[in-house]
């Protein structure tokens, strides 16, 4: 169901306008699914998910006139692959508002294997028991290794395992776009 993409060179899959349109649409979908912003909490996964969650929150505030509580999640210590990939020296702090009986939207840039989302849900469970958890990603690139599916998706792309879908956000990368890179 995803778009076929040209695998030849590095390519821009979504430019800034396309990303902003996708975020505006997902913001509307989130509010609609939740029937308003009552009890809604946006939680971004470090690092790019955090910035995307801020863009989503801005959109929601524009249409609903009210801000949504936000949190950040670093899933490093919940990964299942320490013995495979080794430790990471940069672990961001997690900062989670009250999620007890709230509708939590996990926001990330790319959904690939689903392992990050699995770790994020384990992490959230240590902070409380949300009424429900949604998953919102800018790009679904397929290749799932776990039975996890996003509820809100910016765009689907079918890409090869040897390719990397890179989401660029202003604070980290200086631009807002989705690009395809070949892994050397």
């Amino acid at each position: 169901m995803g778009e076929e993409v040209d695998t030849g060179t590095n390519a821009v899959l979504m430019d800034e306008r396309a990303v902003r349109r996708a975020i505006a649409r997902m913001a509307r979908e989130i509010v609609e699914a939740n029937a308003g912003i009552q009890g809604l909490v946006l939680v971004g996964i470090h690092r790019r998910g955090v910035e995307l969650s801020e863009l989503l929150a801005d959109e929601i505030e524009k249409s609903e006139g009210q801000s949504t509580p936000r949190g950040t999640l670093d899933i490093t210590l919940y990964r299942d692959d320490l013995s495979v990939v080794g430790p990471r020296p940069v672990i961001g702090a997690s900062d989670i508002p009250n999620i007890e009986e709230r509708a939590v939207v996990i926001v990330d840039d790319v959904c690939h294997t689903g392992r990050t989302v699995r770790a994020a849900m384990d992490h959230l469970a240590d902070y409380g028991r949300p009424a429900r958890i949604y998953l919102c990603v800018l790009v679904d690139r397929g290749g799932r290794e776990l039975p996890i599916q996003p509820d809100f998706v910016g765009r689907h792309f079918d890409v090869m395992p040897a390719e990397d879908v890179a989401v660029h956000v202003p604070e980290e990368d200086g631009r807002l776009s989705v690009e395809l890179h070949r892994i050397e």
Partner: protein
Amino acid sequence: MTTKVEFGKDLTGLEGLSSEHITTLLDVAEPFKEISERAIKKVPILRGKTIVNLFYEPSTRTRVSFEFAEKRLSADTVNIAGSSSSIVKGENLVDTARNLEAMRIDMVVIRHGSSGAAQFLAERIPSNVINAGDGQHEHPTQGLLDMLTIRDHTDGIAGRRVCIVGDIVHSRVARSNIWGLLKLGAEVAVCGPPTLVPRGIKELGVHVFKRVEQAIEWADVLNVLRLQLERMKAGYIPSLREYNRFFGVSVARLERAPRDILILHPGPMNRGVEIDSHVADGPHSVILQQVTNGVAVRMAVLYLLAGGSPERAEASKAEGRS
């Protein structure tokens, strides 16, 4: 993102580490602080790892701190105390460790009365070995938690003037502090009775103060060491009262300091000997924060050693997004 610096199998001391290693350890400790503030103080990263805390010398603070660190990372832990195990039956260190290895363990945290015991063990078993204090050699995690605490309360360790006060000769805490602080660019001094300051320490680039008043005049940070009461019996000092009169850190002495001085103490304290109660409980004391930071530092050490092999770092380069 991968570790820029490689950590070996073991942590036996700070002397062999680079400033990048030490800075990485302190940086990694930062996010671990938050875990101990949560309602559920546990993350699953070391799930399934078995860690043995092998303590040949009595210890409450260090052992409990390591145990909390291990448990908050979800490792399984076993404590073995020297006084209540096969060690009293005459089993030697390597045999004890090999028997533990035969039960398939992953890490050993060792406290031992002999200098070099941690290194000796590290060379003989494949498990990770962490030194929790060996004789008069080093106590690396104490050095790290002292540095983390100093960093929390100042603009950084480089250029900071830190004076270690007390029994320097017998102190592994002093050694780990000296190595670590010098590597991070601090100015380091020691102060104590001549019988308790090692000869030749100036060659390391360490200042020596004979009077605690001079140390207070000079320092930004005082790390006050515990005066072990057995030192008096061995004749290093005439009496505890005299030690307090000449080297005790008191409010009266601190009031003459030209600036506010941060007060550290590795514990357990002898109140009224090396430190007065009003100082220990005073506004510039960060002694309890050292204890809090100790858990975070030990979590960082366990985390970095548990995954820190070169092959794994290699594998992480090929890691894709998820």
